[in-house]
């Protein structure tokens, strides 16, 4: 049974418009005019229990509006949705006990106090019994490895540690569904990997359904089995992550810093973007040649001191989805 069931969900915002200048301001005061913006254009989707779903799209695509409707903050203009059998905007308070949410840079922790104080507060807010809270806290501290810094004021934590605490705070009440909006934004590589590992463990060990939005293609590739791409309020792709990987996450930008100078380099099947004695930057398309092949050829000529691989930006993936409609088989494009 689907834990999230959405049918033809639509959201139209009415926003005030104003002509420039003083005259425009006076007009807006006396005769305000409005324009309508359709943020979400009748989307339908279903998420099964225990799924780890990526819900992605560029800024202004309708991701946050959709999450706000699914958490009961926003009332849709049309369509229906049920989360854990409840209509979110009709039973927001009741639903709040069953879901968790982490909204990117909106902290739910008290900045000058240790995370433990915020956890205790949330335990009371979610009305968790004292003994049960102690047990749950111990579980969460172990799962997220918080022991070392749980008593340190939040302001003194690194961004990665803080985000671990944010996610931990949102699961204290054992939510069945958790909405993670950009949980890795601004994190360095190591912290990102840690957060991804923890999200995966949370999904596997507690069977929590995870609804994840992110701009980072790495989050999606490494965490999710299914991905929904939304743009201009419409779902343009609802497919497995492996399908996305093989069809749209094929272009990689590779940066290599040489251990010793290498004035000449021959690499076939890639586009060299920059080459100096100290390093090379090239674009590879994994559909024409596997990354393993490319790197084998490269390492036969040079010793690498450092290497980094950039995923295509979300905007590029979306451009590709529009340019190349989805193929056959289990995957399908929507919209």
């Amino acid at each position, binding site marked *: 049974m689907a834990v999230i069931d959405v049918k033809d969900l639509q959201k139209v915002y*009415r926003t005030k418009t104003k002509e420039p200048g003083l005259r425009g301001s006076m007009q807006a005061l006396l005769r305000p005019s409005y324009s309508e913006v359709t943020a979400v254009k009748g989307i339908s989707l279903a998420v099964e229990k225990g799924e780890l779903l990526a819900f992605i799209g560029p800024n202004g695509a309708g991701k946050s509006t959709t999450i*706000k409707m699914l958490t009961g903050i*926003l009332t849709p203009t049309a369509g229906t949705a049920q989360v854990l059998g409840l209509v979110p*905007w009709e039973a927001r308070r009741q639903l709040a006990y069953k879901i968790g949410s982490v909204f990117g840079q909106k902290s739910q922790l008290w900045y000058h*106090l240790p995370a433990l104080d915020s956890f*205790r507060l949330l335990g*009371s807010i979610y*009305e968790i*019994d004292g003994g049960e809270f102690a047990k749950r806290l111990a579980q969460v501290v172990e799962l997220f490895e918080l022991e070392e810094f749980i008593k340190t004021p939040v302001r003194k934590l690194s961004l990665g540690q803080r985000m671990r605490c944010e996610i931990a705070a949102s699961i204290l009440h*054992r939510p069945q569904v958790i909405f993670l909006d950009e949980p890795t934004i601004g994190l360095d590589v190591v912290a990102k990997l840690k957060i991804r590992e923890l999200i995966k463990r949370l999904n596997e060990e507690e069977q929590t359904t995870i609804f994840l939005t992110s701009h980072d293609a790495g989050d999606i590739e490494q965490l999710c089995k299914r991905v929904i791409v939304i743009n201009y309020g419409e779902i343009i792709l609802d497919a497995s992550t492996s399908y996305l990987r093989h069809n749209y996450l094929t272009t990689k930008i590779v940066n290599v810093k040489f251990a010793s100078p290498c004035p000449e380099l021959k690499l076939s099947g890639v586009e060299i973007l920059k080459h100096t004695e100290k390093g090379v930057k090239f674009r590879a398309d994994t559909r024409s040649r596997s990354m393993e092949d490319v790197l084998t050829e490269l390492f036969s000529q040079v010793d690498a001191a450092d290497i980094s691989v950039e995923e295509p930006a979300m905007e590029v993936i979306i451009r590709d989805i529009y340019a190349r409609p989805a193929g056959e088989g289990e995957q399908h494009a929507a919209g």
Partner: protein
Amino acid sequence: MPVPPGKVSSMQLARGGAVRKYLRVAEISLTNRLAYLADHLVSSIFLILILFIFSQLWKTVLGTEGQIAGLDSTRMLWYMVFTEVIALSTPGTHSLVSEEVKSGDIAYKLVRPYSYILYYFSSHCGEYAVRFVTNLLVGSAFAYLAMGPLAVPWAKLGWVLLGLALAAAINFLVSFSVALLAFWLEENRPFFWILNKMLFIFGGLFIPVEAYPQGLRLVSYLLPLRYSISGPALLVVNFDYAFLWQLLAGQLVWVLLLAALVTAMFRKGVRRVHVHGG
């Protein structure tokens, strides 16, 4: 037995969890404020400065015999200790709420299982308690050294504390209602400025409103501000049962009226968030 994910056991609800959550908010707000205690003590210098100026003024104007509204120079200064302590201890909850409404961040609070108004009221109370105690210690120390002791009505302390608690509630509700104007107005700061100036006059910040000319006194009797500043301060320095009943009755009426207003404003405003996203 562990409760299954997402389930709230009847046991949890039966143990007064709803009340406990707001007490915990007040507690964490109080603890959080203690982290700023040093800053707060430094800012108390402002209180000492005001009290110093007025101690000189009352000594000169009232001398040893003069009175204002039945208060001699010593009790006038002590009156001001309490009005200033009440005014200066009121936290900036209104700015926080105002910003949350304007930025749309209020939406993120609405996904939590608590009443937004009670959450901020509890938080306000926690912070107010710390500010009140520190300001009162500083102000009392100065007044004691400058003008001598106050005959504290210790036996009636419970009534005094009740008056002060209701005053804090009125202050919260008045400023919260102005903060909620942000749902409809792009800029509500001028209203805070006006409110602040009205507190000076109709709240009786410097002189008890009982000493005002009849017209001005009548206006201040019709507004809630007198019940949140002047009234409780006067009760401390000049305790009288007749005045106590009048004060408590007025405070209760205003708490009920303002709570109804704030609830109505919040419901109407939050509907805009649900429809327009803030």
